[in-house]
C-alpha cells in the first residue's frame, strides 16, 4: 500500500498526492452508510483506515500515527466529507481522549492505549458531566478515594455518548474535597468493563437514547490509571475540552436537516403555500440566518488558514446555530401549521419534522448553553468584567453544588 510505504520512509508525502491517495482510497473502500449501531463494522473500518495510513494522521509516529501536519488532516477531512463513514463510535476516543493521553499520559499509557485506539480496537467515552454539574463541570461530586494502591470511585455521570459500547472512559473525579473546586480533581482512565460500572441508556425528549447515565459503585482503579497529576484533573480536563472544541468544529454535519431552508421550502411547495407573501418573507429570513452562519464558518476557516486563531469565536457559531434552529422551528410551524401537529403514522416527513422540533432544544443546551456561550463572548471576546465569583478559593466541601432543596 502506497500510504503505508510512505510511513516507512518517514518523509512527509506531497500534500496533493496525499489528497489524491485519500480520494482514491475512499472511492474504493468507503462502505455504504450503515446503522450507527453496527459496532463491528465500525471497528473493521477503523482498522482499514489505519492500515491505509489514514488513522491518526497528525498523531506521533511512535504510537502508530503518521506525524503529519493538520493540513494533511484537513485534506483527508475534505475528502471524507463526501461520505457517511462509520466512524462515529471513535469520535470521542480519537478526537478528545486520545489526544489528551498523548499530551499528558506517561510513556506507558501512551503505548498501552493509543495504538489500540487508532486500530479500532478500543472505544472510549468521556466521563465529565454529572446531574449536579452541567455548565459548572468543576462542581462535580463523583469521588475517588485512595485505598492502598488503588482508587475507589463512587458517583454518577450523565450525558455520556458512546458509553454503551465503550471499553475505556476518561473519568474526572474529586480526589480532595478540602481544596477549592478546581484544585481537587483528578483524571483517570477507567475500564468500562470493571465491576461496579453500570451503563444505562438515557432517553431524551425526542424519544431517542443517544446518551447514557453511568453509575460507579465502589469501582477500583489502579494508581497508574491517573492521567496527568493527582489533583491536576482540571488541567487535564481543560486540555481535553480544547481538543473537543477542535473536534466539534470539524465534526460532520448531518447531510439532511428537515428544518433547513431547502427542506422547509420544499415542504411549503408541497403544501401549496410557497407563493404566499408571509411564507416568502419567512423563508427569506430563514435563508439569511442560515447563509450568514455558513459564510461566518467559511471566514473562520479562511482566517485559520491565514494563521488567525478562532479564539472564543466558536461560541458565536454555536450560538448562531442554536438561534437558527430556533428560528427554523417557528418557520416550519408558521408554514405547515396543523400539518405538523398530526400525521399519518407512515408519513416520514411528519416524523422527521417532529424529530427536528423536538431535538432543537438540545442545540441551546448541549455543549454549553446559550447563556454560557454569551458569557464566553462577553468575557473573552469583548473583555467585559466578570461577574463576582462566590466560589473562588472556597473549599469544595463548603460549596453549594447541584440542586439545593
Amino acid at each position: 500500500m502506497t500510504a503505508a510505504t510512505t510511513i516507512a520512509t518517514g518523509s512527509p508525502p506531497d500534500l496533493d498526492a496525499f489528497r489524491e491517495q485519500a480520494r482514491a482510497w475512499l472511492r474504493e473502500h468507503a462502505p455504504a452508510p450503515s446503522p450507527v449501531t453496527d459496532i463491528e463494522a465500525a471497528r473493521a473500518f477503523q482498522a482499514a483506515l489505519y492500515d491505509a495510513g489514514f488513522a491518526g494522521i497528525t498523531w506521533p509516529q511512535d504510537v502508530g500515527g503518521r506525524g503529519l501536519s493538520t493540513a494533511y488532516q484537513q485534506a483527508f477531512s475534505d475528502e471524507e466529507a463526501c461520505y457517511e463513514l462509520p466512524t462515529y463510535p471513535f469520535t470521542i476516543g480519537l478526537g478528545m481522549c486520545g489526544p489528551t493521553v498523548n499530551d499528558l499520559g506517561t510513556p506507558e499509557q501512551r503505548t498501552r492505549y493509543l495504538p489500540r485506539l487508532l486500530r479500532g480496537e478500543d472505544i472510549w467515552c468521556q466521563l465529565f458531566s454529572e446531574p449536579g454539574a452541567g455548565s459548572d463541570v468543576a462542581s462535580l461530586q463523583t469521588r475517588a478515594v485512595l485505598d492502598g494502591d488503588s482508587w475507589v470511585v463512587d458517583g454518577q455521570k450523565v450525558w455520556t455518548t458512546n458509553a454503551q459500547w465503550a471499553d475505556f472512559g476518561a473519568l474526572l473525579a474529586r480526589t480532595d474535597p478540602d481544596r477549592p473546586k478546581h484544585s481537587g480533581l483528578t483524571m483517570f482512565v477507567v475500564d468500562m468493563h470493571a465491576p461496579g460500572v453500570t451503563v444505562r441508556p438515557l432517553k431524551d425528549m425526542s424519544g431517542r437514547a443517544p446518551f447514557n447515565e453511568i453509575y460507579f459503585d465502589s469501582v477500583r482503579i489502579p494508581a497508574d490509571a491517573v492521567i496527568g497529576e493527582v489533583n491536576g484533573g482540571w488541567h487535564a480536563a481543560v486540555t481535553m475540552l480544547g481538543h473537543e472544541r477542535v473536534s466539534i468544529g470539524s465534526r460532520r454535519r448531518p447531510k439532511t436537516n428537515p428544518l433547513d431552508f431547502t427542506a422547509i421550502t420544499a415542504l411549503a411547495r408541497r403544501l401549496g403555500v410557497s407563493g404566499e407573501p408571509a411564507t416568502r418573507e419567512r423563508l427569506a429570513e430563514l435563508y439569511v440566518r442560515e447563509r450568514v452562519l455558513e459564510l461566518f464558518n467559511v471566514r473562520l476557516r479562511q482566517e485559520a488558514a491565514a494563521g488567525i486563531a478562532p479564539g472564543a469565536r466558536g461560541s458565536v457559531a454555536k450560538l448562531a446555530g442554536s438561534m437558527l434552529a430556533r428560528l427554523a422551528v417557528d418557520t416550519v410551524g408558521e408554514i405547515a401549521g396543523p400539518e405538523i401537529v398530526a400525521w399519518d403514522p407512515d408519513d416520514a416527513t411528519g416524523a422527521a419534522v417532529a424529530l427536528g422540533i423536538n431535538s432543537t432544544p438540545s442545540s441551546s443546551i448541549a455543549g454549553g448553553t446559550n447563556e454560557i456561550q454569551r458569557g464566553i463572548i462577553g468575557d473573552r471576546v469583548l473583555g467585559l468584567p466578570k461577574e463576582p465569583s462566590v466560589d473562588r478559593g472556597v473549599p469544595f466541601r463548603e460549596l453549594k453544588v447541584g440542586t439545593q432543596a
Partner: protein
Amino acid sequence: MRLVLTQEQQALRAAVRDLLTDRAASAQVRAAMESETGTDRDLWTRLGRDLDVLGLVVPEEYGGAGAGHVERAVVQEELGRALAPTPFLGSAVLATDALLALDDEEARRELLPRLVSGELIATVAVAERGAPWGPGATTATASGDGWTLDGTKTPVVAGDLADVLLVVAITPDGPAWFRVDAADVERTTLATLDPTRRLAKVVLRGTPARKLESADPAGALERVADLATVALAAEQLGGLQRVLEMATDYAKVRVQFGRAIGSYQAVKHGLADVHSDWELGLSALRYAAWAADEAPDEVPVASALVATFFGPAYFKAAEACVQYHGGIGYTWEHDAHLYYKRAKSTELLFGAPGRDRARLADRLGV
C-alpha cells in the same frame, strides 16, 4: 367587563385542581399517554360525575350547570396545567358548543345530558388538510330520508374516542352540520407531535348521517371556532403558568458556580418576561371568556386576540422551561418536554400564528 374571578369561580378552580393533583399527576398522565386510548376514562368520569364540570356552559334544561364560559375557562386552565388526558376539548367544548349553536332541539335533548354526565363522548369533525375551519371538501348527498357523507376529516380532536361525531359537509345548498355515529366511520389514530393529546383521521365513505337543524350553519361554525379558540387559550394559559412555576422553582434550587441559577440575570430576566406574558395573557383570556358570556359581538376579535397571543407566548415559556432546566429538562423523564410539545402543537392545532393574525386583521377591519 369583569376580569377578576368571583369567590365561587375560585372555589371551582380549587376543586378541579384538587382532583387533578390527586388523579392527574405526572405518573398518571404518562400512564394514560402510553395507554391504548391515550386518555384516562376514570378521570373523565370523575370530572363529569363527581365535579359536574362537563356542562358548565350548558343550560340547566339540558342537564348543565348553567354557569358560563368564565367557569369553563377556569376548568380548561386547570386541565391545561395538568396536561390532563381527557376528551374535554372535543366533547365539553367543540361538540357541546356546536349543539348549543345549532338549532336542533331534538339533538340537544338527546345528546347534551349524556355529554354533561360524561357517559357519552362527542366531537366535531371539521378540519381537513389545508382547511382547519371549514366544510372543506366533504360532501353530503341526500339518500332516502337521510344523508350520506364522503370525505376525510383530519385532525379530529378526540376523534378516536368519540361515540358521536358532528360533521360539517357541503350540501347542494351550502355547508351543513350532520350527526354521524362513530361506528360508521373509519378512524386512524394519527402520529402526533404532542403525545398527551390524541388526534385522529376520520374517513367518511357513504357514511349515513342525520342532518342537524340550523338557521345559519356557517355562523354556527364561526361561533364554535371562536369559542374553541378561547377554551384552547385557557388551556394554554394554564400550561404557561405551570411551566413558569416549574422553571421558577427549579431556578431557586439549582446551583451552578456556587449560586442558584435564578440569581443570574439571564435566567431571572427570562423568567420575568415569561411572567409578564402570563399576566398579560391572563387579562386577555379573562376578557375573552367574559365576552363569550356577556358580549357576543366582541367574541370574534377577542378570540383572535387570545389565539394570536397565546400560541407563541406559551411555546416561548415552555422552551424557557426546558432551557432553564438544562440537560435535565431535555430528558424524557422530566415533564418539561410534554409542555414543550403541547405548546407547539396547540399553537398550530387550529392554524399557525400567521393565520391567527390574518384572522384578527379581518375582524379588526384592517
